[in-house]
């Protein structure tokens, strides 16, 4: 198992390296540069800006510079948080006035007073909260519906559950979002239609400290809008998997030896039927992660979402690279986590 995790982690780094290279090539082959404006700047100024941000160097050299900034730790005498050029994710104090800095993703070209690290630090927790709560909605709605539908096949519950499932996959965020805004925000005036209800500092870096009414009011609609589609997928899969499991021999054995039905279902059927559901959590997480940014646009949430689109239209190379790498990292880590949980849930699976 340890060997499997080590090998997968190394593979993960390789994947991220390839992703960064592809992103680098793509972003630089898009015509136009970060300093293009409606009213063109004088060429001398552009040349100066390019020199300042090392954009006048040949592309391979720029890529190596990027890798060097991100991967290689370096000593610095500038205190953390004070420099646009020398901001790093990890700042380790060695002695007075000397820091070991690691992972510098560079400054943002579009908002000149912030670095990629600043943007991620301020905006990511909000997106992460949205994603976590949407995942909670997906599981809290999806699993019970799927279990009920599976246990009472062809009953009202089954039809209800599968109705919700079809509804969930057919009504995407961009349909559900404005509809919810209109119903609960505009007509009933129950919930606010934009903004977010949590402020830093966060618990564990991203969770809101308290779930007060303000937070729940702001988070309710976006989480439901984003999570419902995933809950449909979870419900379908739970149902299908439960239907398959209850026909297995070990369930018959459990019943035959006189176990109470509740124990048969809870201990024998459910645990095994959750295995396929766990595998889908990886891709589901990916869908939620990319879904957050449309949800944020609809509900006016100040998360990472805005930066996906604006960084690309602004040719803000460091921010493009930062956001894409960040989300690619989420995806590969989520998939690794899924594989590990998978082996833990099903002892028959052994990685070598």
């Amino acid at each position, binding site marked *: 198992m340890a060997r499997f995790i080590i090998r997968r982690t190394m593979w993960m780094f390789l994947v991220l390296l390839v992703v960064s290279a592809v992103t680098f090539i793509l972003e630089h082959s898009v015509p*136009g540069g970060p300093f293009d404006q409606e009213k063109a700047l004088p060429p001398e100024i552009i040349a100066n800006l390019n020199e300042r941000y090392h954009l006048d160097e040949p592309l391979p050299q720029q890529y190596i510079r990027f890798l060097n900034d991100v991967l290689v730790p370096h000593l610095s005498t500038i205190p953390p948080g004070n420099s646009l050029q020398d901001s790093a994710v990890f700042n380790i104090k060695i002695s007075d006035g000397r820091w070991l800095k690691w992972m510098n993703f560079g400054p943002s070209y579009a908002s000149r007073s912030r670095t990629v690290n600043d943007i991620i630090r301020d905006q990511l927790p909000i997106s992460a909260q949205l994603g976590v709560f949407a995942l909670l909605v997906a599981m809290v709605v999806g699993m019970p519906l799927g279990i009920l539908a599976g246990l009472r096949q062809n009953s009202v519950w089954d039809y209800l559950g599968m109705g919700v499932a*079809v509804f969930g996959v057919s009504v995407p965020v*961009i*349909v559900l979002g404005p509809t919810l805004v209109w119903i609960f925000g505009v007509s009933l005036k129950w919930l606010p239609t934009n903004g977010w209800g949590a402020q830093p500092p966060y618990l564990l870096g991203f969770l809101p400290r308290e779930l007060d009414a303000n937070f729940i009011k702001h988070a309710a609609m976006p989480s439901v809008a984003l999570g419902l589609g995933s809950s449909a997928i979870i419900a379908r899969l739970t149902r299908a998997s439960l239907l398959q499991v209850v026909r297995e021999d070990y369930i018959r054995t459990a019943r035959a030896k006189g176990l109470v039905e509740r124990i048969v279902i809870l201990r024998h059927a459910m645990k095994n039927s959750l295995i396929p559901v766990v595998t889908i959590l990886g891709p589901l997480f990916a869908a939620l992660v990319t879904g957050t940014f*449309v949800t944020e646009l609809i509900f006016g949430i100040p998360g990472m979402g805005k930066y996906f*689109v604006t960084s690309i239209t602004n040719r803000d190379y460091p921010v493009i690279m930062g956001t*894409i790498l960040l989300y690619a990292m989420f*995806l*590969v880590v989520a998939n690794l986590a899924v594989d590990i949980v998978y082996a833990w849930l099903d002892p028959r699976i052994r990685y070598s």
Partner: protein
Amino acid sequence: MATQADVFEAGREPEFNEEARKGQSLWVDSYRRLIRNRAAVIGGALVIILVLMAIFAPLIAPKSFSEQVLTDNNKVPEWMFSIFPSMKGYANVSSDYLIGADYVGRDLLSRIIYGARVSLAVAFVGPIISMLVGVTYGSISGYFGGRLDDLMMRVVDVMYAFPSLLFIILLMAFFRSTLAKPDPGSFSYMLSDIDTKMGGMFFIFIGIGVTAWQNMARLTRGQVLSVREKEYVEAAHAIGARNYRVMTKHILPNIIGPLVVAETLAIPSYILTEAFLSFIGLGVNPPTPSWGAMISDGSRVVRSYPNQALFPAIALAITMFAFNFLGDGLRDALDPRLRGTR
């Protein structure tokens, strides 16, 4: 799988249908199962209606989709007040527009009708591109196996790690850069010329094509691996058939069923990708109407003119329902494991 148990659980004798004893082709059989599935029939009928609507849009649409009457902006018909009473008091009334006009005075209904063209074009072209690329890639990988297979699948793995929506956005920005225009005569000029003539759909097709084939490739590879060692493939090799022939004449026809089903089930996701792209402004070029772009425009004014967001949203939802129902029905009808059951 446990179909036998199903029958016994219901306490019925297994029924032997006289017709079922006769030889039936897979397709006739599937078709019969499909039309017995009410949801699938409704879905199919809706798809046909949508296709007709898209084809005959110029005949159905009451007005032009692009003509702006700026003095009519945000006008709504009288009956709208009974659904959205909050609009009474500030909305201008005009009976010219059946479900209202948008923020520059274009007829919403006509735009929704024309918008079906984009969504349906994606619904049909998306699977074709994804099949062409994915099946070719997957069959080569699965058929030749070994190192080549390893290499090709690692490429797919890396593609998986790319957040696909971000990748499409990056590609879209790459394709239609706003500030730079390519020189006439160059290849990229030709491409953007095609794109302009198609109202911006061409690049969406390419974007979907680039990102959507991995699933198909994996599935195809798995299917090829499962039939590669079968006797009929060996027989084909034995009589001296070349690789290309074995792949296209012997392997492909035997694995195409599940691939078609998977592609049908993926159609809603293509429609969604286009809607998302248009929603964030990287989809079709204005004034070509797309439901995603209309929802985006509408959701900006959803507090004052909810009709502008809700009607295109309903159109998109109906289309998604239709394809989901049809896809589910097709899967149930074509899934060989369910053959001979209801």
